[in-house]
């Protein structure tokens, strides 16, 4: 077993990308993800791979497109305002079914906002972001270890589904150092890519494009994409469940918020409150079915986010009228504290007792 090393989350993503077989990284600096770009600048050339600091975020995502069409594993990273700039390119990647990894180390928005951690790009990541009918596989790490592991997995999923994959994290996870074990195995296997533009020697030429003007062709292409998204929904779902067997209140939270929620859950349990936690690791596909099941057994659901309430909409859709859904969040780069979560849990339990009495 490998030794524990101390790394910050941004570096752990970078080393994950290298060990995940990333052939080319294209980036443009922005806080709080700069360590990642710097890590790739230092390490990619040592592995004889491509590092380019692009002239802009838009250039970087289009360089990713260019590398991906050749069948290479390509990646870019940025933080919220920079990810907004990349949306056109991400839509093109989705349309052209190109594997690619995009890392968003979220910071406070809207606009240039600030450089503090945030989760206010959930809608952008999971509901489109760019134009057109597409879905992005979205992975949400909650530790430096997962920053590393999920980046490697992102490359595997991108190739497997011929799809862009986003690692959605935040400035706190990017900046914090924590021990982790580095991936020691081989990179994920590379599936054959007969569609790639590799020089059409001895075969018919391939064409990769997203402009489909002929009558009905674009609708057919969209139907094909929808079948793929349905396949992803049926074959990919990751979440962590803690103490849900007997819980009266279920917390749903991801990433940094899930760490805070878990701390609050442990304190609540110590005080005799039956609290459980469901932590989505894939934000799309979303564990709606499991939340629906759990909603039928609990007195209330608490959603904790570093936003004004974005993921809470998916929880409400899943829970329906089976359980009341309460939101606890902080905005603009602020992070909820354990005591805020505890107070919200107490409120839910108090109200549920009130309902029974009346």
């Amino acid at each position, binding site marked *: 077993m490998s030794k*524990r*090393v*101390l790394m*910050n989350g941004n570096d752990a993503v970078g080393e994950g990308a290298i060990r995940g077989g990333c052939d080319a990284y294209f980036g443009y600096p922005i*806080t*709080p993800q700069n360590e990642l770009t710097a890590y790739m600048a230092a390490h990619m050339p040592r592995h004889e791979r491509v590092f380019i600091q692009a002239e802009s975020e838009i250039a970087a995502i289009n360089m990713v497109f260019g590398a991906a069409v050749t069948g290479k594993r390509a990646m870019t990273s940025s933080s919220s305002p920079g990810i907004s700039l990349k949306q056109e390119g991400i839509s093109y990647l989705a349309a052209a079914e190109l594997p690619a990894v995009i890392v968003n180390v979220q910071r406070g928005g809207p606009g240039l906002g600030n*450089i503090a951690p945030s989760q206010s790009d959930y809608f952008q990541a999971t509901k489109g972001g760019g134009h057109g009918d597409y879905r992005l596989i979205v992975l949400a790490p909650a530790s430096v270890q997962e920053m590393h592991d999920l980046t490697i997995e992102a490359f595997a999923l991108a190739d497997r589904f011929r799809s862009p994959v986003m690692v959605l994290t935040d*400035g*706190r996870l990017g*900046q*914090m*150092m*924590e*021990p982790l074990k580095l991936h020691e195995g081989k990179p994920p296997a590379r599936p054959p890519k007969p569609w790639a533009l590799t020089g059409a020697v001895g075969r018919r030429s391939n064409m990769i494009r997203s402009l489909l003007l002929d009558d009905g062709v674009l609708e057919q292409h969209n139907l094909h994409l929808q079948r793929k998204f349905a396949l992803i929904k049926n074959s990919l779902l990751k979440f962590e469940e803690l103490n849900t067997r007997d819980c009266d209140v279920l917390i749903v939270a991801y990433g940094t918020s899930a*760490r*805070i929620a*878990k*701390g*609050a859950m*442990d304190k609540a349990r110590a005080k005799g409150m039956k609290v459980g936690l469901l932590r989505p690791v894939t934000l799309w596909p979303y564990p709606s079915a499991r939340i629906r099941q759990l909603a039928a057994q609990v007195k209330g659901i608490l959603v904790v986010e570093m936003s004004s309430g974005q993921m809470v909409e998916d929880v409400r859709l899943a829970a329906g009228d089976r359980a009341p859904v309460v939101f606890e969040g902080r905005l603009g780069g602020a*992070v909820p*504290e*354990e005591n805020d979560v505890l107070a919200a849990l107490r409120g839910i339990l108090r109200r549920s007792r009130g309902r029974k009495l009346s």
Partner: protein
Amino acid sequence: MSCERILIAGAGGQGIVLLGKLLANAALETVPHVTYFPSYGAEVRGGSSHCQVILSQAEIPSPVASRFETMIIMNEESLTRFLPQLDRKGLAVINSSLCTTQPVRNCLMVPATQTADEIGDQRAANLVLLGVLLHHRPLVAPARIESALRVIWGDRKATLERNLAAFHAGLAL
């Protein structure tokens, strides 16, 4: 020690970040859960710099604390700003060479810059303070700090020796 929250604060250039990483790395093999968190953004030499290290037997929900069991404070500005966040039973090791305020409670005043200067390098004042801290609170074995310093300074023998001397001076104070 079930959970030790440590704040290191001073001015950019005093080795605040280095000290935090050194401590976190030294704890890696003996403490189950370790986090390090910097103040990040537009940091400049001479500006305010601080970082936090948490050493814990249990998982650490947040790497950012607002109360601390332990502090290393390297200048007056940080003293004024952070000392109110020291736990009632906490311990602060303060660089008295650069602080004029005389705090009353739970503080060890150490002339770290002066001590380091006498050793031959003012910049090693951070290690004097770390030595003093570890003498009073054995959070990690001094040998682990020493081996981490050897890794950092590698072939720069003179620098390494001055840093080790500063660390040892702190341990003995």
